[in-house]
């Protein structure tokens, strides 16, 4: 009978071994589930949000600059204070917004560049305040933004809007033709010429030449890049301004012109006039989520294209 009692031992040992095997299998299955879980995680590192925040900062700071340049722009100090307040407000608002999703953000102003807005608001010829057709708009400029002009009448073919450096290399924009069929020609500092609108098409007045955007009458124009192939600093002049009529606006990074305007400008509110403006700001932005830390410094100059 002892033999019969021993008989179960092999089953016990076998069962025990199988139990061990199943435990091992369970552990492996667990690892597999963990790996699957890891694999199905959405991208934890929210790099896209960081970049999104970066572009929000660019847009928000740009709006603060535009607002400060537009309203209460009596002096550079006032504009700087307004931009500084605007950036601080934007930083607080965006930080509160980001905190909802467990992230922290911050924007701080690093520096500003003062500039001058040059504008002709009244519809008159592109002459200076003394009605002279050939005059210097501004000297010692490295950057220009938001440069656009509206053409309301063409009197002759001579008008040139020129940027030239000390070498000298010259960039110019020339408007020719008639009121019914006008052409815009551009020649850059390297001597390349472009026709706008491209091909045989012409535009009729009135039309906009948006130099910073690179469009003529709303149509994209290849080669319309202000002061292309001209070194810094450059001066901006108008030749035969009496041949063209309309208005224009631009912001340059030369602050002295608005502080002591030349005789070319009207000092009593008429056109053309100059006023203080902020050219660009540098801000530092920080974005922090549990997985990502991001800090970058950006320069914001809305409507700039000539650098």
């Amino acid at each position: 009978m002892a033999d019969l009692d021993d008989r179960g031992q092999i089953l016990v040992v076998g069962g025990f071994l199988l139990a061990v095997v199943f435990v091992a299998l369970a552990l492996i299955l667990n690892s597999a589930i963990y790996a699957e879980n890891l694999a199905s995680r959405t991208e934890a590192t929210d790099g896209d949000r960081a970049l999104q925040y970066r572009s929000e900062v660019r847009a928000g700071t740009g709006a603060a600059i535009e607002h400060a340049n537009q309203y209460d722009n009596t002096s550079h100090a006032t504009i700087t204070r307004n931009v500084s307040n605007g950036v601080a407000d934007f930083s607080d608002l965006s930080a509160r917004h980001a905190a909802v999703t467990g992230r922290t953000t911050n924007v701080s102003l690093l520096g500003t560049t003062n500039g001058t807005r040059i504008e002709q608001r009244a519809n008159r010829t592109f002459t200076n305040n003394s009605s002279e057709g050939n005059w210097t708009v501004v000297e010692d400029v490295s950057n220009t933004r938001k440069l656009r002009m509206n053409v309301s009448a063409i009197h002759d073919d001579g008008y040139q809007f020129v940027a030239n450096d000390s070498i000298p290399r010259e960039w110019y924009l020339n408007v020719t033709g008639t009121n019914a069929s006008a052409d815009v020609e551009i020649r850059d500092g390297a001597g390349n010429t472009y026709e706008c609108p491209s091909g045989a098409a012409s535009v009729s007045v009135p039309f906009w030449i948006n130099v910073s955007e690179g469009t003529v009458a709303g149509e994209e124009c290849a080669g319309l890049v202000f002061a292309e192939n001209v070194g810094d600093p450059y001066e901006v002049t108008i030749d035969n301004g009496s041949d063209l009529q309309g208005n224009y606006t631009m912001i340059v990074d030369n602050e002295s012109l608005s502080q002591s305007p030349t005789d070319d400008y009207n000092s009593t509110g008429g056109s053309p006039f100059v006023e203080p403006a902020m050219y660009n700001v540098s801000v530092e932005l920080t974005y922090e989520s549990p997985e990502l830390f991001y800090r970058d410094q950006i320069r914001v100059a809305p409507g700039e294209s000539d650098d």
Partner: protein
Amino acid sequence: MTERAGGDDHDRAVSSTLSYALGLSIATMLITGLVIGAGGYVEQRRESVTRDGMTVIGQQIASDVQAVDRVVSGSDDEANVTATQGLPERIVGNDYTVVVVARSDAYLRVTTDSADGEIAVTVPLANETDVAAARLDGGDVGITYDEGEDALVIESA
């Protein structure tokens, strides 16, 4: 029937011993077969799970490298970017090592030393910014942009 009955009585002792021995050997064979079969199956699963786990870890790191790369590409040169990723220290009970092979077509090589020798998996990196060569053990990983070297540095966090 009687003949048989008489025969049975005679053979019975033999039959009992024989059937005992037979039963024992069949049970042993069956159980041995089961244990060997299940053990082999477990070992096979283990290797395949290890391989899957390493691929997943490699891909997680690669995806983070890509995310940081995108942020760096979309920023100015002085950008400061650091991403951290929580990863297991071991896969199916084995330590593993990640080697960053820095070449024009950089890739990650994840290896582990199990009882049955080395298992290695390579995961390609899709990066615009260069990556720095590195060797790190399992666990959390940090990816930082080094402005000086203009490269992404992958290290244990």
